[in-house]
């Protein structure tokens, strides 16, 4: 594809890390359009005029009433029709940290998961307060999974990046169903070691060490850690120890997913 796709990055009151997300996508070969939510809401800018949706981190609406909840409400209310159309066009969508929280609150993640047991209510998930009850900023290692998803298909080795959240503990009504459906895009852990499990490798107590999930199409990815903060070598605290694990390929995969589609 010779034209660079454009990423829409909405900015709600309290959103941050939108600048880094834009830098990451530009480094990955896309153009970006950072737009205040008010302009989207007034229809000055439309989601369907873009090829990728990137929901950045931060504290939309101050995380009042729970992290990502009110942004999630926006997604399911006035933004719903545009999202339906975007999904019909197979638009890749990524939600990072607060964006992930909003996608979960909006019911878009983990999406439609076949139920393993008899509960029959559909599988729900939540990003609850960290196990230690605190906001936590630290670098973590992420083991990619769900390689059928265009987002993680090209990731053949772990990536490293920081987390920065207080409400990132992934919990779900049916962990085995989420795992059986191969929706786990990233787990916290140390490569080569048994699954992380313990603090601080699993920094927030997430069930199954889950750091990120995809929906049933694989096109919607949500994760708590911040790959957009490890796109350039200079950002790596271990750059002089050559540990690798840069996250640029993740954003390149999202851009490539547009090109392929």
């Amino acid at each position, binding site marked *: 594809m010779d034209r660079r796709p454009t990423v829409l990055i909405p*900015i709600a009151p309290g959103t941050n890390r939108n600048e880094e997300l834009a830098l990451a996508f530009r480094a990955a070969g896309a153009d970006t359009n950072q737009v205040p939510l008010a302009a989207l809401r007034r229809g000055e800018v439309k989601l369907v005029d873009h090829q990728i949706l990137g929901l950045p981190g931060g504290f939309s609406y101050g995380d009042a*009433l729970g992290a990502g909840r009110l942004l999630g409400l926006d997604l399911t209310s006035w933004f719903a029709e545009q999202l339906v159309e975007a999904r019909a066009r197979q638009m890749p969508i990524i939600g990072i940290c607060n964006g992930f929280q909003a996608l979960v609150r909006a019911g878009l993640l983990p999406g439609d998961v076949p139920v393993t047991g008899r509960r029959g209510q559909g599988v729900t998930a939540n990003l609850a307060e960290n196990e230690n009850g605190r906001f*936590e900023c630290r670098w973590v290692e992420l083991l990619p999974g769900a390689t059928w998803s265009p987002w993680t298909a090209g990731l053949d080795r*772990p990536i490293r990046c920081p987390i920065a959240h207080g409400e990132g503990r992934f919990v*779900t009504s049916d962990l085995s169903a989420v795992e059986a459906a191969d929706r786990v895009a990233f787990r916290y852990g140390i490569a080569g070691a048994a699954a992380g499990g313990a603090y601080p490798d699993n920094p927030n107590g997430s069930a199954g060490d889950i750091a990120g999930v995809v929906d049933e199409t694989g096109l919607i990815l949500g994760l708590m850690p911040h790959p957009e903060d490890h796109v350039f070598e200079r950002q790596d605290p271990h750059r002089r*120890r050559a540990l690798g694990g840069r996250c640029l390929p993740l954003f390149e995969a999202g851009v490539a997913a547009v090109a392929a589609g």
Partner: protein
Amino acid sequence: MTVPACTKCKKLGEATTAVGRYDILDRVELDTDVAVVIGPGTVDTGPDGPAEKAKLFGLRANQIVAYPIVHLRGALTTEQIRTLADALLIEPVTQWWMLRDEHTPPSGHGRVAVIETGLRPGVTDRQAAELLRAAAELGIPLEAAAFGTRWLVYGFLGEGDNVRIAERVLHNPVIERWADDKLIPAFTDRQAESPPTRTIPLGGHDQAGLEAISAERRLGLTGEEMAAIQKWYASEGRDPTDAELEMLAQTWSEHCSHKTFRAMISTPDGEIDGLLDTYLRGATETINAPWVASAFVDNAGIVNFDARLDLALKAETHNHPSALEPFGGANTGVGGVVRDILGVSAKPVAITDILCFGPENLPIDKLPPGVLHPRRIRAGVIAGIGDYGNKIGVPNLGGAILHDVSYTTTPLVFAGCVGVLPSGSNPTEPRPGDFIVTLGGAVGRDGVGGATFSSQSMGTETAAVAGSSVQIGDPVVEKGLIDLVVAARDAGLYTAITDCGAGGLSSAVGEMAEDLGADVDLAKVPRKYPGLAPWEVWLSEAQERMVLAVPDPVPLLALAERWQVEATVIGWFTGEGRIVVRDGESTVIDLDATFLHKGRPRLHLQATPVAAARTPRSPKELVGTVVEPVDALRGLLAHPSLRSNEAVVRTYDHEVLGGTIIRPYDGVALDGPADGTVFVPPGAETAEPLRGAAIGIGSAILLGRHDCEAMAWAAIDEAIRNAVVAGADPDRLSLLDNFAWGNPRNPETLGRLVAACRGCHDAALAYRAPFVSGKDSLFNEFVGPDGTPDPVTPTLIITAVGIVADVEAIPAVGLMAPGNDIWLLGPAAGMLGGSHLDEITGGDRGGHLPGPDPEAVLRHREMHRAIRAGLVISAHDVSEGGLAAAAAEWAFAGRLGLALTVAEHHTAYELFGEGLGRYLVEVEPGRSDELMEIAPSATRIGWTTNDGRVRIGTELDISLDDIEVAFKSGPGNVVGRPAAAPEPPPVTDDGGDA
């Protein structure tokens, strides 16, 4: 309303007393509201949790469970309440809700007491505001909401223990109320009448009478200042209004006019014509550094970063509010300094914080009445700092936590901020006819009187009477301000800008209108609730507001709407030199701007030098005579001011913006203390080589007990060392000063301040490092019930910001490889007077202090040249705890051993002595000649090893594991973390070792 009303709610807890000026805030208490309890409750058993705090007061609860409670008002159906709760209040997976009337405490942990807490009316409640907004989107007619907590306290509590636990542990009367069992929320009245503006007769009062008026209104003005006001009004032929008196008090307050730092000071050695002009600004003018674009004139200093960008620098104090309401005080402290940066049109890109607390294990019987326990202050302040910075998306890049017993009654919070702006893009000239536009939130009684309050001493009564002086922040609004101001700056929409800080509109508009005069209508100012007196609107310190001078408001208002920031035109600059403030039809202020800003009589103060005679000390003191070297080192590493604060720093976002290069904790496992931090400002990411900004922070409070001049030199030297290790050019530094002092009307206290300022001046000149901004916080003393003042230990914090020409050349934090040479720049021995060794071994045992060292600048330059030449693999400065502590931290950060020898016999002076301009560097063995050429003061003192031990001669030998245990002895740290491993093999299905 179809939900049964809560009939038992009429009884308000007896101890729910209103505080201070909130008495005049009318409340409406209805019994038709409904309260929703959200479960499951949470139990915090951590060191900062309620059960542990209760133990401090001898109250032993088996368990304390907290349930969020939400009070709803409106004509709501049961179905609507269910929709609200399901959609907006609980999480489907983990939470449930029920009406409060149905909520009965589960049994099983002994007797239970139920206590409810909630915010006072008018205190920022972002949750309630968002709930109202979201309910409206769902079409639910919610009229008001309030969030609180329902506490179940289990245990065999004695008579009255529920009251004690509520008052001392579960709520803070400054911002909250509590009730036994059921609290009725205090919604603000929508119908309250505004009190009119009153005239305060001054005519005929003598000085004592004027002082009484000042005291009664808590104006903080002296008799002499009141007399000047009386005289001016006599010439105008009238008396002042309350609004005018409040404006004068605010403008003339210590906080806003720095009258002590501008005072004429008599000393035995002659007159000092103002500390600020003589010493701080004086040093800057003498140095005349070409990179300083603006110093001491605006909200923040401005220095060049590169050919296109400038940096804005500011560090503030927020001590008094943090003592009363630690979370809110620290929270708004960060918010305030960030707005100082915005106030020079810069985008905030880094935050710093230095926090000073009393001993965490202070026995309760040592705690004066009216004072919060250091642990409670510490927990609240740390949470407040993190909350604000994290939520506005600005990384926290450096700080310190210092402990001293004097910080028990006067805890200190220093918050700093660095911003970035295109060179020359800060407009500072309002023009006649420009409109005055406020950006940001509505006003309430928040912090009314804050500027005058923070300029006075605190006492037991302060917590009770100063309630409204403390504010709560709303960082989401501030984030909107940042985005809006940067966009408005780039579009050239304003001619001047300032923040609304202490003193509110009175201070902001007053300063902007100093030359032009202004005409303002208070009726236009958006309010949180009715019933405010005009002077309260004018003085309100409601947070998150900026004031702009705007030639054409239309495009600015459109931009504000796009960023969802409230923007209001409240008046214009007249060019007539008078400050006229109306409230609709009536004029409440009509002041001559010149009198307002120039009419204050200058203070004349007396300073008495404090002699610093030192008792002699054996020059060959062996540590073993007092304490074994290895035990001394363990004690130093575990000292509350030296030990790891990693668990605290992890609660601050230091990665956001993606520009962080050196983190506060770095090294092989990201748990080694970095000397300075480095970041690449947004907009500078594409430069070749990549240029960065380094932040170094210095303090020397132990020296301040003996000699404040020595303290100033040591603090400046430490800040510079930290920046230089992080790659900064020592000949391209800019400094910020922060003083926290006792009562400067005491001649000895002032004498110490004079000494500190002289030290700042002399060191700045010696190092050619200009001050560009600063902040003094005076009257930091607590007056106990018996009238004895308890002043804070003299505290000077220096922040050095430097330029790193190439971030690739920055030395690593922590040792990198075994077999490398270790070199010491500077003397092998330090001084023991005022040392941390003495601090941990029972106090001052005499000996010289580390004094001024004009030669230190040569070593800063040698160090920098060695870094630029690529010789320095890793480095660490020699600081608190001397060579031994520095070696231990450095080795631990890299998880490698050290074998060092600096003398035939290592005395306490070599191991633990402290001094200026000392560095440890790791260099490859083959490069000794190059290093000696560049750094003549360097001595090779040993090498790196891989045996996991730090050895200094035969006198000291300690394992890295023991170092870690001591260094991480503070709360919350993780011991035994593995170091980062080399890149693992790919995880593919077809063979991992490919």
